[in-house]
């Protein structure tokens, strides 16, 4: 009996840090953005997410015989703005093209896309990448090769198999609601010289793109809903060598997955190369649960798409004056804006990130513009107001709190009329529609008790109630004063200034501050 000689064990991966000692990664990122237009790319069908299957279709997007596409003007405007935001050149003239291949989610069995004439070319994006271990950030310029327009496919569900995945399925079901929704594809130039930062660069790039698209208002860019998709191309080479064979990883459905997929692919390829193996040029599928990629369709025999210019559409020639008008509508690049504001406000990257994550950056910025101190704006928006918003199940920007309200509240605090704790009640009143800050203070009687005699009365009461504590303080245990102050605060329903109470108490007892 002969022993099995063929090894069917997969080659092991190489831990990331170790892989980076021997290899240089080259990345290429292809991001698809589903535009948030009202209607589809080539027909007037609605584009709302989540509709019943095959209810947002028409003869055109079903590719019934005899139908013809007509370009959605808003899609053209959106892609030009996206290209401008990515510092691209907008071409003077270009055509759509047919990409021919058979697949049941694509009714025409060709996709109308762009081939050698993309509408935006040769741009770049400066991406702020966090360094490991909180060492700060570095900026990486990612080159943009092209940005082009195309259409999305229908949605397949696979039936009969165990996992709902394609392998092992008995048949499939197609919903064409999504077929024909405008897609913009953004392709980077090869991203080199990132070394161990490669996964972080990939993630930061996609995150920045997402913020830009949100800022432009062209898409809701929700990775979990598929309106932002990322394919990651990865290759490895030894230093000084030519670039290696690349693989393309799909099904990367979150920012974290972008980072993990790149990392995992680097580890896997290093494992293959270390043992003298060859990287197969192929499409791979990323698995969220295991964090690794598995092979999909082999790309050894590349599909021949037989591109030719789309004869049912005429060329697109964006008017130069119009492009300049659109350029004026492009907001400042988000990361650059954040860096500028952080510097203005004297805060660090971490605090800025908190504001962004809390979704209150714009609110803070607007408040500051209206004269609120940055620290105060941050304190309230990222603190109490965010809490209230979450409690009420609304977005912070939907709270009826204006920058002027915050300014007034801060003024009242500074004047000693109210304290922080009372201020929360003031905001509660404003949000409940009881009026502005002053009106709420008056109506609810929220002023700090400033009358010393009233405070002294409360102090004497508290001392009388806690004679043992009074003894301790008289005996020099100043720390015990806290209990008395607490009691006075409680008695005054928080409407006393704690510091002042403490001073009065110690004075009253003739005890010096420790």
């Amino acid at each position, binding site marked *: 009996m002969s022993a099995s000689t063929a090894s069917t064990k997969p080659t092991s991966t190489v831990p990331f840090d170790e892989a980076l000692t021997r290899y240089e990664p080259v990345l290429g990122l292809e991001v698809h953005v589903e535009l948030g237009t009202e209607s589809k790319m080539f027909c007037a069908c609605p584009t709302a997410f989540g509709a019943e299957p095959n209810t947002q279709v028409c*003869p055109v997007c*079903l*590719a*019934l*015989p*005899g*139908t*013809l*596409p*007509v*370009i959605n003007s808003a899609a053209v405007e959106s892609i030009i703005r996206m290209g401008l935001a990515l510092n691209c050149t907008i071409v003077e003239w270009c055509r759509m093209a*047919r990409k*021919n291949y*058979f697949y*049941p989610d694509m*009714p*025409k*069995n*060709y996709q109308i896309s762009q081939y050698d004439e993309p509408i935006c070319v040769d741009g770049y994006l400066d991406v702020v990448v966090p360094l490991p271990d909180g060492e700060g950030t570095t900026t990486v310029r990612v080159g943009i090769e092209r940005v082009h327009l195309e259409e999305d496919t229908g949605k397949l569900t696979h039936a009969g198999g165990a996992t709902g995945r394609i392998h092992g399925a008995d048949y*499939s079901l*197609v919903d064409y609601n999504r077929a024909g929704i405008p897609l913009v594809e953004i392709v980077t130039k090869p991203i080199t010289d990132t070394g161990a930062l490669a996964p972080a660069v990939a993630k930061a790039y996609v995150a920045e793109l997402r913020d830009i698209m949100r800022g432009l208002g062209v898409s809701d860019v929700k990775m979990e809903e598929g309106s932002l998709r990322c394919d990651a191309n990865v290759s490895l080479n030894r230093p000084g060598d030519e670039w290696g064979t690349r693989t393309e990883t799909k099904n990367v459905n979150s920012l974290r997955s972008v980072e993990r997929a790149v990392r995992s692919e680097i580890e896997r390829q290093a494992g293959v190369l270390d043992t003298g193996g060859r990287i197969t040029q192929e499409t791979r599928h990323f698995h969220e649960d295991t964090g690794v990629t598995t092979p999909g369709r082999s790309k050894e025999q590349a599909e*021949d798409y*037989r*591109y*030719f210019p789309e*004869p*049912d*559409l*005429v060329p697109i020639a964006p008017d130069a004056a119009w492009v300049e008008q659109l350029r004026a509508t492009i907001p400042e690049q988000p990361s650059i804006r954040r860096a500028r504001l952080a510097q203005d406000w004297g805060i660090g990257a971490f605090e800025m990130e908190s504001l962004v994550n809390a979704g209150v950056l714009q609110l803070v910025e607007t408040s500051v513009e209206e004269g609120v101190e940055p620290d105060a704006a941050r304190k309230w928006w990222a603190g109490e107001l965010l809490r209230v918003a979450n409690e009420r199940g609304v977005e912070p920007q939907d709270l009826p709190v204006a920058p002027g309200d915050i300014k007034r509240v801060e003024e009242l605090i500074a004047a000693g009329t109210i304290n922080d704790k009372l201020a929360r009640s003031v905001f509660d009143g404003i949000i409940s529609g009881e009026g502005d800050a002053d009106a709420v203070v008056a109506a609810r009687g929220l002023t700090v008790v400033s009358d010393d005699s009233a405070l002294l009365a409360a102090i004497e009461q508290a001392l009388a109630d806690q004679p043992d504590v009074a003894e301790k303080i008289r005996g020099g245990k100043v720390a015990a004063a806290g209990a008395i102050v607490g009691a006075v605060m409680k008695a005054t329903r928080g409407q006393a200034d704690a510091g002042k109470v403490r001073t009065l108490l110690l004075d009253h007892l003739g005890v010096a501050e420790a």
Partner: protein
Amino acid sequence: MPTSPIDADLIRQSATVLAAAIAAGEVSSREVVQAHLDRIGEVDEAVHAFLHVTAHEALETADTVDAKRAAGDPLGPLAGVPLALKDVLAMRGVPTTCGSRILEGWRPPYDATVVERLRDADVVILGKTNMDEFAMGSSTEHSAFGPTRNPWDLDRIPGGSGGGSAAAVAAFEAPLAIGTDTGGSIRQPAAVTGTVGVKPTYGGVSRYGLVALASSLDQAGPCARTVLDAAHLHAVIAGHDPRDSTSIDAAVPDVIAAAQRADVRGMRVGLVRQLDGEGYAPGVRQRFAEAVEILTHLGAEIVEVDCPHFEYALGAYYLILPSEASSNLARFDGMRYGLRSGDGSDASVESVMSATREAGFGAEVKRRIMLGTYALSSGYYDAYYGQAQKVRTLIRRDFDAAFDKADVLISPTAPTTAFRLGEKLDDPLAMYLNDIATIPVNLAGNAAMSLPIGLSPDDGLPVGLQIMAPAMADDRLYLAGAAVEGALYDRWGHLLIEEAPAL
């Protein structure tokens, strides 16, 4: 030309005469439509022009027209007149096969724009006519449902791909028909059946609902027995359509006025050197020469023009058309509509698509799909499709230069008269040569007409004259065509089609 009141034989009248009679209340649309349905019943078993007759709907439409007339509502110039529709145009709820098994039984849920305009004009659609499968052919022998026969001689082809529409008109089954022309599919059938057919300027008539063969070449157009009838039909169907990005957003040239003027005095008429000569049958050339004399006699100035790149037109065409067609026909895969073959427990989507297309497509379609796939494949694109697109530019430039010297160009429409059924089926290239005179116009995108100029002395079969006009100048076709037609009518005392043998 007869403009006298209606006489007993309704099916022999022109559309213009019928429309006037209906509008004047001399005859009802129902009577007219019924007469044509009866005629179809009599002769179509032999001719096989129709794949589907919509008798019920047609009579309903006729009744609507009659009711409108009775109520004093305004009626359009062709209201109540029957028409045959090439089965390549989508008609809501009516089987639309494109002459192919792969669409057998498919009923579109929508109307082509051309059909919408016909309906708006109260034209009565009698049914769908036979055609070469997906409009690929010059004889209608490639229909999956059997050929149509030429009413002049039932053993001969009626031309293609629109043989059904031309035969329906020639057999008096309808005074009007709609055809489509990608390389001559309206004009060549018109020539071999002794009728009138026009390919409008590319973009002049909407392609929305016209099942695409070659998107950059296809055009729908009018078929009729007289130039004036064709003009009326042209005016109904032409015009901008926002659903067709390639349609022209400009006024339709006044083709009716031009047909009525029928005057070529001072018109410069160009003879294209490359579109006459050896490849053309002697009888055809003789009638063509006589037509040239007629034009001279009518006051036209004859000039000779040279279009040197026309000899490459056939090659360019048979690269561009299959390439675009191979892509346009990819949607027929058995997944969403039409035939599905080979489904079963072992089936995969790939195998079902392949089995369906193998079973559903005929040989000519498969040939052209593969030719197109070849021409577009990587490594071959530049030499084939890419090069053909350049030749196309050169052909356009030849036309531009020719139209500097002439207002219209003329040639025989087809190199021969109607050949026998089966004669060219085994030789695809020989079949392609039928389009040698008509193809250049499709490549350049300008307009052309074929009208009957006599019977060939060799075989007594109809010969057609092709008139070509610059893009957007379709009216010149009607100006010259009506003039020639009128001169011939004066000479013969009747339209040529009246000489067709009884069926």
